[in-house]
């Protein structure tokens, strides 16, 4: 069991997401950086999709009410009783120890995994918090001071090894987009602008979507659409002319014109970018998107194999 001692808004319990219910109007929720979540879980010998704490605003402080192995991946830094741990590391906490997760000043999302996985009631086969639907996680809400969370029975011994993961090399540069849908209806000059402009991530961004501020995009002729299904990564263009990239908590259907889809691997990079920072977009092919995904899967598979060797 762990107790939340200090908590900023936005901290939730998330696993890999709730899939298979979109047609019923239930979104996926789930970790915005699934790779960081999976890495943290694999370090502990958990199921890669096990539920963990997603931290968007730091600091978070927790007290361990029992001995527990934990890992901290993604952005930020873990400090156990005043002792800083390296990034993407596995640690062992004793009962009564205080773990502080703090920002390294560059924004981003952190994942605190616990050996066994955070034990919350699963709803529709997932532990993820659906903030809009108010279910999953801890009563469908953000964590707050005084919350006590249990962990599932451990599958690994508390002291198994002192090691971490080499953070996945995300690559640099523009985020990759598969253009499509109503993109071709944009005037050509604006089509070019989508991929030549600096887009600033609005501070109004959240788990539902990231708002991109830059040149205003307008269709010559208004585009009227019937409602369609929405998935994370979809880039919508509302009448404001400022594109929105849908994220984990995206609604299940929408009606705004669409410019294309940000590929999953770069949707993680977008989610890890601090509001206020700038990004660029570039066109990519389906093959390139599949390659990026395969490379992530390879990284996780190698990590999992190597961990088995070290902690059989």
């Amino acid at each position, binding site marked *: 069991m762990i107790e939340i001692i200090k908590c900023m808004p936005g901290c939730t319990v998330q696993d890999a997401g709730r899939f298979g219910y979109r047609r019923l109007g239930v979104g996926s929720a789930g970790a915005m950086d699934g790779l960081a979540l999976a890495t943290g879980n694999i370090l502990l010998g958990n199921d890669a999709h096990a539920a963990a704490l997603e931290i968007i605003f730091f600091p978070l402080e927790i007290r361990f009410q029992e001995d527990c192995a934990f890992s901290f991946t993604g952005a930020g830094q873990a400090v156990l009783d005043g002792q800083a741990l*390296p*990034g*993407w*590391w596995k640690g062992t906490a004793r009962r009564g120890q205080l773990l502080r997760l703090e920002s390294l000043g560059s924004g981003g999302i952190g994942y605190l995994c616990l050996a066994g996985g955070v034990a919350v009631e699963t709803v529709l086969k997932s532990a993820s918090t659906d903030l809009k639907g108010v279910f999953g996680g801890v009563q469908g809400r953000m964590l707050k001071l005084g919350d006590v969370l249990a962990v599932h029975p451990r599958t690994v011994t508390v002291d198994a090894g*002192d*090691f*971490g*993961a*080499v*953070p996945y090399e995300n690559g640099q540069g523009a985020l990759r987009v598969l253009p499509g849908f109503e993109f071709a209806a944009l005037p050509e000059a604006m089509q070019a602008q989508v991929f030549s402009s600096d887009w600033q991530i609005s501070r109004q961004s959240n788990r539902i979507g990231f708002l991109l501020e830059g040149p205003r995009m307008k269709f010559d002729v208004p585009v009227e659409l019937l409602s369609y299904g929405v998935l994370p990564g979809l880039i919508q263009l509302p009448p404001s002319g400022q594109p929105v990239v849908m994220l984990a908590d995206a609604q299940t259907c929408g009606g705004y014109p669409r410019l294309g889809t940000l590929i999953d691997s770069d949707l993680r990079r977008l989610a890890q970018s601090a509001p206020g920072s700038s990004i660029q977009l570039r066109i990519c092919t389906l093959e390139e998107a599949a390659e990026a995904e395969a490379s992530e899967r390879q*990284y996780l598979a*190698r*990590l999992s194999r*190597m*961990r088995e060797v*070290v902690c059989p």
Partner: protein
Amino acid sequence: MNFSEIREICRCFARSQLSEIEYRDSYSSLRLLQNPAARPVATSPVSVTPVMALPTGSAAMLIKSPQVGHFLIGHPSKTTACVEAGCLVRKGDIVAFLQVGPLLFPVRSDVDGIIDSVLVEPQALVEYATPLFSLSESESLNENHRS
């Protein structure tokens, strides 16, 4: 394990800084011993400073590699090194990392002291017990110990 493999292991062992290795699988077991003092000191292929150039005698303190891996002077997500010459380190401090595929292992100092020099190049593949850092005793630490 066949004869040529055993011969190859013996060769590697003779070139290494190790005094003993033991290997076991379900079919065989192999134990090799050697007395490092009784043979010429070999230059480790990965060390930039030959081992012979290290200060000898009890005053020299070393941090040795706890295992095989690629030597990283700092964490891959940071641009700074864990320590550099002149840094005061305490027993248990992480002074470097060893990368094995996607895993990262810490090199922790087992003594208190001041880092004199880094003995291997970044990214070099180091063996078990390869000297990584030389240290000198810190006077202030000694005073602390006396008081």
